[in-house]
């Protein structure tokens, strides 16, 4: 038999219909839904008199819009309407909703794995670009637009052309102080924000295998920032250990049957990737973005690049525009960049391990006078777990705000936003212009790096910090 890649195996197991020269029709195992990209899809179903084909394979939560301070009071009427529309739609079409009152509510990409919905080998879709997160389990997890949300609701299928596969192999082991986030930023810095267009990325290599599930989720989460449709890591003991016993994971005989299937989910020896990128983990450093896309990134030990150092005129112009927006000078050391705000949160870095790592840095210290810092757990479960471990006290004693779960300041749809001109160290995934609030300036980094920046008032090299 011809050797197959991990992607081939999952793809082939989900083909409902395939015809030469046409996109395939794939079956969807799990459809995750949130309030922002679903309202118009449900409305489309109603207008056409269509039903949801498999409501029991569909799960919804409210995350993008929810307030993280006074959770019960949504002052923004349009936000409230959107969340009410989600509730009404889930009721009407018989879909499980983890709403704001549920202790299972949270960012859709945090609760899927945490509740055991996300499993190896699945085709998972969601009307959200960071759906790639679920690929950490060896699932084919793809983002879709609202029309496709409607399509999946009505048919439980997805029309899709097979992507090419890029192997990103990270050899060796990560140095101390270098996190999964740095692996993600380093990869994007290497291949560029459009280097992954048309590809699915399979992350492999010793450094990837050594990551926890949380770390793998961070890595896969940011695949989309390299332009890739999805990112994935072949499942192994780390994966099975994480999934086992979760509320919606298979149990008993079903668990054994599932495990037999999952154990084969890896790229066969001799299977050909369309492209391979190799990275030496030892060369990775803590990274900080300086510009307005995640590819505009440098090690914390360097300075802001000079636009003239870019080869192509387009990159040069983009760098000039980014520096103007970010109010930075070429050559300025990253460690001299002062911040006004610090945000620890988002589907990239708000799982329990992220909060533990940040708390370790913060313990016994105080947030700088000039900085307003907040922690927004990725889910209500993460929040409860962190409180059980006393992490909330470590953060609040240091002067961080401790909030309710949601997407929050990752994208500025709820009241948590930057004011024009404010500079923020953020564990989120995008540093686009205005992403965290109109006129706001975002620098992406790992939870440890953001926590340290909050304390110091400017970026610092976490590797030296740890020696303090």
């Amino acid at each position, binding site marked *: 038999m011809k050797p197959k890649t991990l992607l081939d195996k999952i793809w082939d197991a989900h083909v409902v219909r395939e015809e030469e020269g046409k996109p395939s029709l794939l079956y969807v195992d799990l459809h995750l839904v949130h309030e922002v990209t679903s309202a118009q899809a449900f409305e489309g179903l109603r207008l056409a008199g269509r039903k949801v084909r498999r409501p029991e394979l569909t799960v919804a939560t409210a995350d993008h819009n929810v307030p993280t301070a006074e959770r019960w009071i949504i002052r923004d009427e349009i936000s409230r309407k*959107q969340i009410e529309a989600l509730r009404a739609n889930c009721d009407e079409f018989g879909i*499980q909703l983890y709403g704001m009152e549920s202790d299972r509510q949270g960012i859709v990409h945090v609760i899927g794995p945490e509740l055991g919905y996300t499993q190896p080998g699945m085709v998972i879709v969601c009307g959200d670009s960071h759906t790639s997160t679920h690929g950490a389990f060896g699932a084919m997890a793809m983002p879709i637009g609202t029309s496709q949300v409607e399509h999946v609701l*009505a048919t439980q299928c997805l029309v899709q052309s097979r992507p090419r596969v890029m192997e990103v192999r990270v050899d060796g082991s990560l140095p101390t102080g270098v996190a999964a986030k740095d692996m993600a930023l380093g990869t994007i810095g290497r291949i560029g924000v459009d280097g992954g267009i048309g590809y699915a990325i399979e992350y492999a290599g010793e450094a990837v295998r050594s990551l926890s599930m949380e770390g793998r989720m961070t890595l896969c989460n940011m695949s989309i920032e390299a332009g890739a449709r999805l990112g994935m890591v072949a499942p192994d003991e780390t994966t099975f250990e994480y999934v086992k016993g979760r509320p*919606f994971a*298979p149990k008993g005989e079903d668990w054994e049957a599932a495990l037999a299937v999952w154990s084969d989910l890896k790229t066969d020896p001799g299977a050909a990737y369309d492209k391979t990128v190799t990275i030496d983990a030892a060369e990775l450093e803590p990274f900080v973005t300086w510009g307005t896309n995640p590819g505009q990134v440098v090690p914390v030990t360097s300075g802001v690049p000079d636009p003239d150092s870019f080869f192509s005129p387009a990159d040069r112009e983009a760098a000039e525009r980014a520096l103007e927006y970010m109010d930075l000078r070429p050559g300025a050391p990253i460690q001299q960049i002062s911040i006004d705000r610090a945000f620890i949160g988002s589907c990239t870095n708000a799982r329990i391990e992220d909060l533990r790592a940040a708390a370790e840095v913060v313990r016994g210290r105080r947030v700088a006078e000039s900085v307003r810092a907040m922690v927004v757990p990725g889910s209500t479960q993460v929040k409860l777990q962190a409180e059980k471990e006393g992490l909330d006290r470590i953060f609040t004693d240091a002067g961080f705000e401790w909030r309710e779960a949601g997407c929050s300041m990752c994208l500025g749809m709820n009241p948590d936003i930057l004011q024009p001109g404010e500079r923020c160290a953020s564990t989120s995934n995008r540093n686009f212009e205005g992403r965290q609030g*109109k006129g706001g300036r975002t620098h992406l980094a790992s939870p440890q790096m953001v926590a340290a920046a909050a304390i110091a008032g400017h970026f610092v090299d976490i590797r030296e910090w740890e020696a303090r």
Partner: protein
Amino acid sequence: MEPFARVTGVVLPLDRSNVDTDQIVPARYLKRIERQGWGEVLFYDWRYTDGEPNPEFVMNDERYGGAAVLVANRNFGSGSSREHAVWAVRQYGIRAVIAPSFADIFHKNCFENGLVPVIMTQEQVDTIMGKAQGSPGYELTVDLKRCEVSDAEGFKAPFVVHEDPGTHEFRRNTLLNGLDEIALTLQQDEKIAAFEAKRPRWLAAGVK
């Protein structure tokens, strides 16, 4: 979906690469649950300063008024999956976007909404960008039947709507005919049901 065959219109030049969906429609506008009215917020934060039109931004140059074609640089539509971005471009009156490459989700969303993603070489895009910047009001014809753009000066160039030839042909056909993809898939009901019958029990029981 409105079928698309051929459109002639003013070209709006947006000489930037990696134009992300947060610029096309800022997140704070995504709270609305309607499918109409998105053209007004297109490129809002580039288009307006303190609520007033920003004279520096190309969309506010009257000479490009009523544009039907947008030309931009590589990786257009990067970032989030928000289809609102495509709705905004389309509802502003744009029927086709020309670029050397499109971000994956935005690209797919175009086909669902009758917005034609015109993929051309960097050199051809540079030519069109130059013409549109050099003579505001410059018009171009996008012909999806012939897969060709042309202008009154005799410039002609071929294009694809997808780099994969099979997908290009399939998508071109749905755009030309304004086909409803859901209706097409529902015709496959027997095949879907047959697939469902084969799924393992533990998968079917995944969600309770």
